[in-house]
């Protein structure tokens, strides 16, 4: 199933309570389901096929019911709930569907918090179902009781505690609707054990389509589209910045049509990467602290800045009071909270960009802006000479992270899903990986969660089984969720793992080198022998130390039928450039 459209058809309810004899008219309908069984039937009705989870005391009734749903629902047993939720995020990001997580109460639930925060800031649709102690024990410090609703309130789009089985259908219907509609986000539903066990009459399931107080998609205002088009048509140096909104809105085609007609150079945030193919002539590169030179410098020279589905994160804008002051700003976003939050919009175009972009495209004049494009090419030439050549085609003895990505590009031809962790390797991968398709760059953007990549890659493979999935991880981050190698072992999922091993917590070391007089404070992290560790999980691997080993090892990894790990020793003290130092404007980006 490619879409996540809910279906109203209910699967055969797995009744654990025998139907009572025909009741008289006055009495309530006989119970025909437990809360736990209802949960699973609702998941099927919502089109769920995969669950990432870990059982425990307070969620045993749901797992008991799951025993009879093995044929319909693929439950992936993870090794830690954080791994479970990151896997669900990877699944959601690769597939565009809602990721589903099961966890028990107490520590099981609190282990979800990092993933919830990550999913909220990166707008990833998730429904997390946690078990909770019996309703009569709430507030008594019962075994494995924790107030997960209040703990997760700041990191969920919505959450709700169910204490009676009758509440389950409505709560879950709202959960799926809220998670996937408007600006997507994570939802947590906490279900007390008694509600899971309780038998009730589960008549039929209706997916939620409306909530009184909730307007997920703002109404498009034609007058602003006209104002925006007028600004674009008069612009001499227009510049498009796009973010994940284009991907979340499934508006890649509409976006391409817009920039191709208007001829505007377009740069991406890391979560937007891949929405337009890397080699598209209008794709001028990456924004932000370690983005490309031209897009950063020319942000402060453009006359009209068109931001599409992006939120002006501080890693993108650098110093705000020196950010694009000369430009008129057109901001397209589905979330009104983002308009004027960081950068004041001259013209706000709120709405789903899949709806607004075609309207805007119809109003803009066809242009090519050849001189303006030349500026980007000139800056790129400068960056190639100063940074990129040395990174991708180094002449020194040590391997660089960039040449690993470059070699990988040669072999995958941009067809792979690249899942990255957080740090130097992430910036290198995002800068240099080639993407032919949307939903190909899966990374922890807003929260910067080390440990994200390994479980997210597992989830991505379940979400897009037909595509090769390559996880690129640093030697720091991989040790944060390395236990998920056990999930790979048990499920047999095919994930290629590349550890870019510089024997340092490289990004922090880079800052310490540049801004803290090389005081390398606790960044010299040691690693186990990853190939040996992997072999303990029955995952073959290879260590790469020399340039001549690199290409054959990558070929071997990609050709291997199943997961494979490469531990690649790269230069210890390479820095990521260009760089916009903290507190500097984007125009002050440094090439070295």
């Amino acid at each position: 199933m490619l879409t996540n459209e809910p279906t109203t058809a209910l699967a055969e309810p797995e009744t654990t309570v025998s139907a009572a004899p025909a009741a008289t008219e006055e009495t309530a309908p006989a119970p025909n389901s437990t809360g736990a069984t209802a949960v699973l039937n609702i998941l099927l009705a919502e089109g769920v096929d995969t669950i990432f989870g870990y059982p425990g005391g307070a969620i045993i009734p749901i797992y008991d019911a799951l025993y009879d749903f093995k044929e319909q629902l693929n439950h992936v047993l993870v090794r830690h709930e954080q791994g479970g939720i990151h896997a669900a995020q990877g699944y959601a990001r690769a597939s565009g569907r809602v990721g589903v997580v099961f966890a028990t109460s107490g520590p099981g639930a609190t282990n979800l918090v990092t993933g919830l925060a990550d999913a909220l800031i990166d707008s990833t649709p998730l429904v997390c179902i946690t078990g909770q102690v019996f309703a009569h024990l709430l507030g008594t410090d019962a075994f494995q009781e924790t107030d997960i609703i209040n703990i997760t309130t700041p990191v969920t789009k919505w959450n709700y505690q169910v204490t009676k089985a009758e509440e389950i259908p409505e709560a879950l219907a709202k959960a799926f609707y809220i998670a996937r509609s408007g600006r997507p986000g994570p939802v947590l539903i906490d279900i007390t054990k008694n509600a899971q066990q309780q038998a009730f009459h589960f008549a039929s399931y209706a997916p939620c389509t409306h909530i009184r107080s909730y307007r997920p998609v703002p109404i498009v205002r034609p007058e602003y589209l006209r104002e925006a088009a007028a600004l674009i048509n008069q612009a001499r140096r227009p510049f498009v910045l796009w973010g994940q909104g284009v991907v979340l809105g499934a508006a890649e085609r509409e976006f391409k049509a817009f920039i191709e007609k208007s001829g505007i150079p377009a740069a991406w945030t890391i979560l937007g990467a891949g929405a337009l193919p890397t080699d598209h002539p209008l794709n001028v590169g990456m924004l932000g602290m370690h983005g490309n030179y031209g897009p950063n410098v020319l942000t402060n020279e453009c006359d009209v800045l068109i931001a599409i589905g992006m939120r002006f994160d501080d890693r993108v804008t650098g110093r705000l009071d020196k950010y694009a002051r000369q430009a008129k700003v057109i901001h397209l976003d589905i979330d009104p909270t983002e308009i004027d939050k960081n950068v004041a919009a001259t013209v706000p175009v709120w709405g789903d960009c899949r709806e607004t972009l075609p309207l805007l495209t119809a109003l803009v004049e066809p242009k090519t802006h050849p001189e303006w494009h030349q500026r980007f090419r000139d800056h790129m030439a400068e960056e190639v000479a100063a940074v990129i050549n040395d990174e991708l085609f180094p002449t020194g003895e040590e391997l660089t992270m960039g040449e690993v990505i470059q070699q990988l590009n040669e072999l995958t031809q941009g067809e792979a899903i690249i899942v990255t962790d957080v740090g130097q390797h992430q910036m290198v991968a995002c800068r240099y990986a080639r993407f032919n398709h949307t939903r190909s760059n899966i990374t922890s953007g807003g929260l910067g969660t080390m440990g994200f990549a390994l479980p997210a890659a597992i989830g991505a493979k379940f979400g897009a089984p037909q595509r090769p999935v390559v996880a690129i991880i640093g030697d720091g981050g991989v040790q944060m969720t390395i236990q998920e190698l056990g999930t790979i072992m048990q499920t047999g999922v095919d994930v290629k793992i590349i550890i870019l091993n510089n024997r340092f917590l490289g990004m922090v070391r880079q800052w310490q080198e540049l801004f803290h007089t090389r005081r390398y404070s606790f960044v010299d992290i040691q690693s186990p022998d990853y190939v040996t560790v992997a072999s303990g999980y029955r995952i073959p691997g290879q260590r790469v130390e020399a340039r001549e080993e690199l290409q054959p090892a990558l070929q071997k990894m990609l050709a291997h039928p199943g997961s494979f790990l490469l531990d690649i020793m790269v230069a210890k003290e390479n820095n990521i450039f260009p760089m916009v130092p903290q507190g500097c404007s984007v125009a002050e980006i440094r090439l070295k």
Partner: protein
Amino acid sequence: MSQFPTIDRQEYNITAYTENQVGLLNRIAIIFSRRKINIESLNTSPSEIEGIHRFNIVITETEEVVSKLARQIEKQVEVLKVYYNTNADVIWQEMALYKVPTDVIAEKASVERLLRENGARAVVIRKDYTVFETTGHREETDNLIKVLQPYGLIEFVRSARIAIIKASDGFNHKLREFERREPSEDVSENEFLNSRDAVFTM
């Protein structure tokens, strides 16, 4: 950095229309505490619309911050609409209760005069103490504390602020203003409120 003029922080009255849901108070409160902003007064009550509650929240901040807070509150699933107003835009009241020994009041005619001047009303009169109530602005309720302190004020409490907007066509006007920057057309709720314009003035 923004289109807002730089002005001093001042008191703002934030009015949020919400569904009645357990946990929503916390969801709203953390939007303030996240930015380390102190809520000076918070009141929840039903509104004139069935099933819709209203929060009256008072904070001291700049308009730029208040407008962002208002949007972040409105972004919450169970919040319909959020408005913010300066004190000049609203009619507001706070209620206070004062517990004073009855014998002092009975003995001293001056106390009775002071209570009268401050618009206080006796709520309960017992042999040992009397409870007075005043309703008004902060200065007025504060003033009576000072007045009663010398006469053995036993206990004082003040309620949260409740506020209603002054402009009689305020709601429509405000809505248009919001539509300039805010996206939703507020389909059903606004029609309902508009039809009750005479009663509901915000």
